[in-house]
């Protein structure tokens, strides 16, 4: 059996270039990406090679796959693995990039945000509706809606964040710098406003739904921040050790 190991992804929407650079560094050490794994990649031990990695987002029908992959292999990009609409390729240094003009690069991030929004936006809206439902209803309904809302929120918050990021990637490709900077502030601004609003409403109306929501939003800020801090600390230490 071949030797394998797992590395974590920084999240393609958030750190695509960093991920690709990381895969290249591992390939130089003889560890080559072979598969997507939960929130990361599987690497396989081989000989040290200088590979450049690239990602494309595209929803392909069965009869389109052959041609699509042939375009890449003709241009010197070998297909590593695909999952859903995400396709990973690698090539030797000096191979021309998979995107060579700005217009089509914009389309790339449009593909990525389009596939997200079809699923994610209705989901986020549903979550908001259930919360509103929990606040205005009472008794048994309130408890049920409450539970549902909490569960939905755990998934909806990171999802909403990811959608905003995919849009920001698209705007970045389009060269709309102003919008990108606004997007960077949005999550903090929104969360800040939400916390303030909830504190105000909570002090007037002692509805348990509202106080729980306050805790959840606070948790939603604190937890990722803590994870992010631990992860970046861990990477810093590892980079020093290597």
């Amino acid at each position: 059996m071949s030797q394998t190991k797992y590395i974590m992804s920084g999240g393609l929407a958030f750190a695509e270039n960093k991920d690709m650079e990381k895969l290249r560094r591992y390939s130089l050490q003889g560890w080559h990406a072979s598969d997507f794994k939960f929130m990361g990649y599987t690497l396989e031990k081989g000989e040290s090679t200088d590979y450049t990695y690239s990602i494309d987002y595209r929803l392909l029908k069965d009869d389109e796959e052959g041609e699509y992959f042939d375009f890449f292999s003709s241009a010197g990009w070998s297909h590593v693995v695909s999952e859903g609409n995400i396709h990973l390729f690698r090539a030797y240094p000096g191979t021309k990039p998979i995107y060579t003009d700005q217009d089509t690069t914009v389309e790339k991030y449009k593909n990525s945000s389009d596939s997200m929004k079809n699923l994610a936006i209705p989901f986020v809206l549903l979550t908001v509706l259930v919360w509103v439902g929990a606040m205005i209803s009472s008794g048994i309904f309130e408890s049920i809606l409450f539970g549902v809302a909490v569960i939905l929120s755990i998934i909806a918050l990171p999802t909403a964040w990811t959608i905003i990021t995919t849009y920001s990637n698209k705007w970045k490709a389009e060269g709309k710098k102003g919008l990108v900077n606004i997007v960077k502030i949005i999550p903090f601004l929104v969360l800040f406003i939400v916390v303030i609003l909830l504190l105000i409403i909570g002090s007037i109306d002692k509805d348990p739904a509202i106080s729980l929501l306050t805790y959840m939003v606070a948790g939603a800020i604190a937890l990722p921040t803590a994870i992010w801090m631990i992860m970046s600390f861990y990477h810093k230490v590892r980079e020093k050790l290597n």
Partner: protein
Amino acid sequence: MKEVEQLTDSMFYIMAALTKPRHGYAIMSLIEETTKGAVAIGPASMYTIIKKLLKQEWIYLHDKSDSRRKTYLLTKKGKKVLEEDLKIRKLMIQLAENGLEEVEE
């Protein structure tokens, strides 16, 4: 919407290559050879543009017997778009050439 706008350079090259039936790889090589390697179109850009041109009905699927190497050809509409764009590009070149000649004099 896109029809009144000027073609991007990549679209122009690809449409120029599709005055004869060609598959993706043949388009890429023709462009690279003709421009002596100065211009290359990446596979993802190429695929995106082919799909777009098909949607605009500026090209059509000419032969799909080899599913990996489908060939495409300009439609009448596409030929017209290319001709119009060529006119503008010729004017652009003329502008630059005239300007440079004046400098030399």
